[in-house]
């Protein structure tokens, strides 16, 4: 027995090694796709409603299509599933006419009902769409997605009843419509007016403790929130019914299908970028039948998914590669030139660069800073690299609830005492431009107002005026950044500049991402870094962040005049006047300076010189459906325009 065991040992080891090689090669070598590129982190989901982020953007854009789509060069909205649209004179009503030949990948037509279904699903709080605010421009959409906390007595509501907890999770419960009469709190007292608003905004209160009294066809009924599981196990209290959730009546939300191919949206305010938003991936449609047959998230499995974009997925290997192939049912299939595209989930930008330089991939969207400088310095200049400014600003937040940042003179002194040119030219070196405004340049009709430029003398004078001559008595301040070598190098440089120019003491502190975000939100910092990417090409995406108490404000700063201007701009119908209001608002922001902008990012794409249909644009968005391969490189390459 023992002898056998011992002599078996090498055999077992040998078998294990062979098995592992077999396993490793099990996936085999595939024929390469027409186009292969590095897409960054593994995408969170293929469900357009629940994702955020750039890798997801590229993936969803390949698989789905909205009412409009963006021109690959100018990013202007163009007909997508909608072939044309009418806009009312007050800019509040949009009517879209869907093309007859728009199809799902299973061959069935894409109709107006699909869009209503998808929009409702997107707004439903149970879908938990982090990007739901992208649809809040539609009338009452925000209220709908606020669920039971957003409805008020007098509103028309829909009560969704519980379903079998073992059923498919994406099917809605039966809906009862009625008028909300009153809301009662835990002890049975009526909640109304300000008390209701306060209670609804208090996340520590459980909505399950409230009773919603609704006048329905059956008379006044009392509903209480319950999970499907607890609803199936427990009888409701006497005189009450369980409800999955209570929402504003969908009929009061500004969208309806007029017929199978016509859809109408009514907006809260004139929104000049509404057509762009409809081409932004969170608002893309999903197929009801597919979602409700397989449930969430199983419907996104490659075997199950039904999509309506230029491509459909062929296989997906987590953190390895996802292959998409041309969707033969896509209405514009004749203009889709690539038959297959591989999305590589490679996180390290160095690995991505290695893959690109060895010819394994055709496009990488990021190049490590050190390598970028070398690549840019190559002579003759490379024909596959052309950094261009983006709609993206890097800045520092100042915590104005803390001394000494409560003094505007200190904030100004800090801004004026830094040397942005040293930062962009010495440290970054990819052609980034110094900036003195929050909104990046390049938006049509908007010339951002400037905060004061560098002036060390004036900065020292301001600091002295604020009571800290030559930095004496100035507390040690701390720059907070999330763990990343780039942010660290910048923080070290700024620290040196502030110490030399103002004679103040500066420390730096790094925190990993989740802790960093929570510190920022709780105002647990002195100075903190932030980068902001415009969601759409309009100054508002930057400026509405700094309204008093705004969720992403994170500085403690607020200004009534600023809030008023942002609110006025939201309802202004005249585009020029609207931009003027936003300009006035930014002037206040740059004068009060709760933030210090330093530079605008540049895009860092490397694209094989035989790829066409790839353009530099300020949102760094490159639809795959527009790409084609010019093997002989006979046509000019628009991507390289402007590079010497």
């Amino acid at each position, binding site marked *: 027995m023992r002898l056998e065991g011992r002599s078996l*040992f090498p055999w077992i080891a040998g078998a294990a*090694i062979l098995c592992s090689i077999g396993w*490793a090669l099990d996936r085999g070598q595939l024929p390469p796709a027409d186009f292969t590129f590095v897409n960054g982190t593994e995408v969170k989901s293929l469900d357009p409603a629940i994702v955020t982020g750039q890798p997801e953007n590229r993936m969803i854009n390949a698989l789905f299509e909205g009412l409009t789509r963006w021109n690959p060069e100018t990013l202007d909205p163009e007909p997508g599933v909608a072939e044309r649209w009418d806009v009312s004179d007050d800019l509040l009503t949009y009517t879209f006419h869907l093309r007859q030949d728009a199809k799902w990948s299973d061959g069935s037509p894409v109709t107006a009902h699909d869009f209503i279904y998808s929009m409702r699903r997107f707004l439903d709080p149970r879908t*938990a769409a982090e990007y739901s605010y992208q649809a809040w421009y539609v009338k009452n959409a925000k209220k709908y997605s606020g669920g039971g906390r957003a409805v008020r007595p007098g509103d028309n509501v829909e009560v969704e009843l519980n379903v079998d907890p073992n059923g498919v999770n994406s099917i809605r419960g039966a809906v009862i419509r009625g008028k909300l009469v009153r809301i009662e709190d835990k002890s049975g007292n009526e909640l109304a007016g300000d008390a209701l608003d306060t209670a609804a905004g208090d996340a520590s209160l459980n909505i399950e403790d409230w009773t919603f009294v609704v006048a329905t066809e059956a008379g006044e009924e009392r509903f209480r929130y319950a999970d499907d599981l607890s609803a199936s196990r427990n009888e409701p209290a006497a005189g009450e019914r369980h409800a999955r959730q209570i929402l504003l009546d969908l009929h009061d939300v500004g969208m309806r299908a007029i017929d199978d191919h016509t859809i109408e949206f009514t907006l809260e305010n004139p929104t000049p970028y509404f057509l762009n938003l409809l081409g932004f991936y969170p608002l893309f449609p999903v197929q009801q039948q597919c979602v409700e047959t397989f449930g969430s998230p199983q419907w996104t499995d490659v075997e199950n998914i039904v999509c309506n974009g230029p491509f459909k997925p062929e296989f997906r290997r987590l953190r390895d590669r996802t292959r998409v192939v041309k969707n033969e049912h896509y209405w514009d299939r004749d203009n889709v030139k690539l038959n297959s595209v591989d999305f590589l989930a490679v996180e390290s930008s160095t690995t991505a660069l*290695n893959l690109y330089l060895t010819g394994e991939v055709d496009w990488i969207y990021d190049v490590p800073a050190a390598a970028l400088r070398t690549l840019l310095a190559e002579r003759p200049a490379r024909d596959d690299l052309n950094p261009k400014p983006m709609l993206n600003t890097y800045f520092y937040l100042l915590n104005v609830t803390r001394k000494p940042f409560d003094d505007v003179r200190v904030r100004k002194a800090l801004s004026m005492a830094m040397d942005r040119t040293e930062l962009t030219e010495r440290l970054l070196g990819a052609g980034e431009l110094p900036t003195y405004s929050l909104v990046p340049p390049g938006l049509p009709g908007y010339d951002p107002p400037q905060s004061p430029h560098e002036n060390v003398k004036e900065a020292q004078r301001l600091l002295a005026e604020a009571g800290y001559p030559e930095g004496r008595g100035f507390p040690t301040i701390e720059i907070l950044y999330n763990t990343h070598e780039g942010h660290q190098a910048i923080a070290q440089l700024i620290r040196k500049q502030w110490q030399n120019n103002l004679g103040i003491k500066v420390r730096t502190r790094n925190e990993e991402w989740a802790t960093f975000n929570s510190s920022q939100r709780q105002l647990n910092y002195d100075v903190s870094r932030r980068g902001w990417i415009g969601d759409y090409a309009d100054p508002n995406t930057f400026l509405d962040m700094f309204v008093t108490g705004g969720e992403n404000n994170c500085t403690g700063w607020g200004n009534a005049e600023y809030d008023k201007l942002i609110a006025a701009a939201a309802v202004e119908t005249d585009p020029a006047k609207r931009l003027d209001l936003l300009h006035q608002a930014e002037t206040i922001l740059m004068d009060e300076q709760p933030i210090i902008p330093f530079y605008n990012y540049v895009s860092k794409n490397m694209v094989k010189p035989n790829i066409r249909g790839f353009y530099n644009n300020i949102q760094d968005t490159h639809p795959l459906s527009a790409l084609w391969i010019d093997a002989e490189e006979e046509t000019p390459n628009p991507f390289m325009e402007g590079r010497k």
Partner: protein
Amino acid sequence: MMIAFIIKRFFWLLVTLWAVFTVSFILMRSVPGGPFDREKAVAPEIKRNLERRYNLDKPVLVQYGLELERVFLHGDLGHCMNIADASVNFVIRQGLPISAALGILAMTFAVSFGVLTGVVAAAMRGSPLDVGLRLAATAGIALPNFVVAGVCILLFVFWLSLLPAAGWGSLSQLVLPAFCLGAPYAAEVARISRTSMLDALSHDYIRTARAKGVSRTRVVLVHGLRNSLLPVVSFLGPAVAGILTGSLIVEQIFGIPGLGVYFVKSALQRDYTLSMGVVLLYTLVLYTMNFLVDLSYAYLDPRVELE
């Protein structure tokens, strides 16, 4: 005897898993920031629904009970909080074979190369070859993975154009990662096997064998090697577990879709379910490897008794 030993070990495995589960649960929930904190704020009602999906809206003790029940009674590690399309079990099913294959290859390289150099060095103790191999082993232990990987990539990918830069699927894509992952372990094995070989060679029975006229090679390879393998085997237990899960850097550099990355990343992203899943997996692998090592002692050395 044997069966009692296995049952006892299995019982302690459960206790260990439970303890690890509890400590990880407490640690994860006591660091600041949650899985759904984002740079851009998430609307409160949306966040509540996200949290509800993972029972995070319930009191911590209730969460603990639910998780414990799901993991230990149903063997279901739950749904990833970050990769919303996948369950933790699925992520492990996809990643583990890859990490395991890579790990076994790296280990094979480490053991065969390590034992060979260790034995040669011991047999030729004091010679320039011995000094050279020991230097190389020290360097192998001291040099971090990413330096070895960087040099290898420069050499084999860019200068010699022999091997692909990254990826997974073909034999040529395996060579560099397996080498880089195995190198420090090879160095460690070489060091251990040299020491234990020297120890074995100093025993009386070796002198007896030599006196009987057995050839030098046979003495080293049969009498010496068998007795010097035990320390190497005992090193293998934790090393295999470490190589399986510590492949983070090699996996990142070579773009390999294994499990190593999740050990760090899931914790940074506060992906409670995924990080719990990989921590439990690590515990299981480490425990199993140690168990196998103990069992193999009994086979390799008849003097060892299981207890």
